[in-house]
């Protein structure tokens, strides 16, 4: 049974303990970020001098809080002050705390003892305690940005739990760039009471979250960790990226098996056994999570590359050949149906290369024909934005808007936007993933093509091989579920 973390992520009121008038202090930044991002609940703050901070008249003591109006304390006070503070907070109805204060387990034996005492105390008080020594949490359903770092991401369906606060920020930056948003995110800090599996178990039951995204460095009890993650991944996908080497486990040296057992090989096997999707890099992890959040799971691995120009299709086919995906050999009936829409110069195989033979409606029409064919499980769409790119040159050139340029530039933009929308609509109608890739997603995100992909709520992949990597992960997870009869 997952621990109820709703007071942490959806509090009805918050107190920032240790608010500061100095804009360089965590106690200022935390209050600023809560107030600046639209949190609708009541916000209180404490400050030993009772100064006004960001328009809030601070309390000199938690005892001055009204009863029952606050259930989350965001704690920036020195470690030594925290036990009394938490007792007083619990008396006022606080049920969750994020401890940003340092000076605990990361700070030697004394800090370790203080951390153990803090856990015992929070257990007694019935407080769900995140941290200590963490950067905070965000929760877009509550417009809550209770963290000492930026940014506040767009709302979405990805739930993040990280042993590094800085990687929370990295993921949030990707969310802001791509538009694929976040439901909840938490920097686990020292994980004294609540650790990564606790957050994931909450996300597994959380209707706002479709997929979990995890960064870990150390997993002291690997077996218990993965037994919990297996139960989570059976409900919703979990994408994990791991930093650093684990402690070198001592294994029986007399055996060849032991000699071959690297920590990473065992960790990797545990991920596979638990149905956890392991990504190689932070960027890949974000993109895979974004793909889980925005695309249906493929039912098979037969993939069609759909492109308006040759070279892209070739390298994408190469990338597919290095994965668990299959480049579908187009069946005769599909070839024949495409023939009715295209002149004879099209590729007549997969990649489906339209070879510049499109008329106004060709791209969406043929995409629909391919997507609805029963032997096709997924598509990768390349070449979006070419027309709008030329449109930009014409718009910025010396002849605009004359010579018919204004009209044609508008047409180019509308066409590329339409293709992006078609990919989203056809994916929804066919219940098959269609991933759109173009480097314009990062090189010129204002281009009407990638801009429309973002508007449609999908990730526009910065390269075809990155789309292939994400789709490969989706298929591997779908296959894991199929093999175990998981829906």
């Amino acid at each position, binding site marked *: 049974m997952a621990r109820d973390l709703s007071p942490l992520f959806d509090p009805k009121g918050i107190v920032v303990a240790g608010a500061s008038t100095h804009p360089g202090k965590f106690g200022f930044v935390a209050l600023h970020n809560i107030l600046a991002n639209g949190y609708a609940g009541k916000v209180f703050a404490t400050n030993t001098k009772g100064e006004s901070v960001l328009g809030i008249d601070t309390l000199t003591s938690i005892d001055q809080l009204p009863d029952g109006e606050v259930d989350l304390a965001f704690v920036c006070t020195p470690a030594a002050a925290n036990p009394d503070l938490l007792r007083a907070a619990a008396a006022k109805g606080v049920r969750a705390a994020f401890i940003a204060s340092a000076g605990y387990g990361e700070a030697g034996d004394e800090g370790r003892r203080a951390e153990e005492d803090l856990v015992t105390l929070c257990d007694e008080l019935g407080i769900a305690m995140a941290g200590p020594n963490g950067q905070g949490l965000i929760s877009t359903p509550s417009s809550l940005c209770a963290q000492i770092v930026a940014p506040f991401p767009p709302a979405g369906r990805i739930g993040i739990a990280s042993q590094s606060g800085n990687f929370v920020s990295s993921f949030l930056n990707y969310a802001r760039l791509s538009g694929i948003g976040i439901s909840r995110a938490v920097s686990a800090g020292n994980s004294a009471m609540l650790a990564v599996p606790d957050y994931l178990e909450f996300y597994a039951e959380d209707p706002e979250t479709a997929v979990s995204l995890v960064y870990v460095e150390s*997993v*002291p*009890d*690997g*077996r218990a960790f*993965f037994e919990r993650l297996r139960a989570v991944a059976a409900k919703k996908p979990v994408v994990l990226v791991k930093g650093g080497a*684990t*402690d070198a*486990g*001592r*294994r*029986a040296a*007399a*055996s*060849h*098996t*032991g*000699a*071959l*057992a*690297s*920590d990473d*090989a*065992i*960790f*990797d*096997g*545990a991920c*596979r*056994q638990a149905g956890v999707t392991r990504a190689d890099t932070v960027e890949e992890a974000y993109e895979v999570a974004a793909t889980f959040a925005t695309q249906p799971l493929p039912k098979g691995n037969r993939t069609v590359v759909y492109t308006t120009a040759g070279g892209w299709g070739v390298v994408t086919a190469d990338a597919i050949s290095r994965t668990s995906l299959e480049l579908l050999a187009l069946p005769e009936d599909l070839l024949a149906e495409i023939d009715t829409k295209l002149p004879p110069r099209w590729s007549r195989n997969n990649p489906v290369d339209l070879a510049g033979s499109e008329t106004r409606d060709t791209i969406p029409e043929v995409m629909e024909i391919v997507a609805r064919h029963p032997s096709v499980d997924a598509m990768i769409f390349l070449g979006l934005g070419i027309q709008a790119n030329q449109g930009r040159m014409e718009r910025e050139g010396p002849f605009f808007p004359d010579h018919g340029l204004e009209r044609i530039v508008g047409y180019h933009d509308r066409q590329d936007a339409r293709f992006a929308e078609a990919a989203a609509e056809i994916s929804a109608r066919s219940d098959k993933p269609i991933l759109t890739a173009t480097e314009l997603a990062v090189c010129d995100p204002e281009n009407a093509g990638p801009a429309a992909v973002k508007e449609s709520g999908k990730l526009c992949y910065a390269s075809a091989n990155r789309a292939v990597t994400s789709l490969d992960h989706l298929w591997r997870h779908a296959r*894991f579920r199929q*093999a*175990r009869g998981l829906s």
Partner: protein
Amino acid sequence: MPTLSEAESKAVLAAHGVPILPERVVATADEAADAGTDMGFPVVAKLNGDAIAHKTERGLVRLGLADADALRAAAAAMLAMATPEDGAVGVLVAPMVSGNRELIAGLAHDEQFGMTVMLGVGGILAEAVADVTFRMVPIQRVDAAEMIDDLSTQKLFGPFRGEPAIDREAVIDVLVGLSAAAVADPSLVSADLNPLIVVDGRPVAVDALVERRVERSEGGV
């Protein structure tokens, strides 16, 4: 950590469905010759005993013995090479099998993950190639099937140099058997099936080494 003799190691694992060649352990060179005659030549002979772990390095493995005389001579020579540290020894006689492909499988205990089961590409380059995959014990058949898929050298599992494709179900039997052996006996700390020679598409353990914790309770084999 005490190791079990090859014969006892094989018996522990065979009890859980790991495919092991029929073999006999005998006390004398003449009995070895009789055993070889019963099972048919060529055969392999090895010195067998609890304390003998690295037989190959000591010249205690004789392959491809073609007849009773050759077997008798090899058995006598190996028995003569036994040292007092080897404890009680005998001669293990087994049919000589051959195949172009070798796998390795085993069990290894890890501090963070507990007992794990491994499958890898075997042979003399096994440790250099390190094409291996692990799971936490216990595993289900579906996990074992996915372990096969994990290996990079997939071509090894198809038809190969005139030999048929590897019987995946038989490999799964090996892995599930190792897992079951570890569950049944928590004192196991490691096991090696090295090599698992692929004979007519089926993996056969021609050597086995099982290690147990000292403080194991009596019983088992």
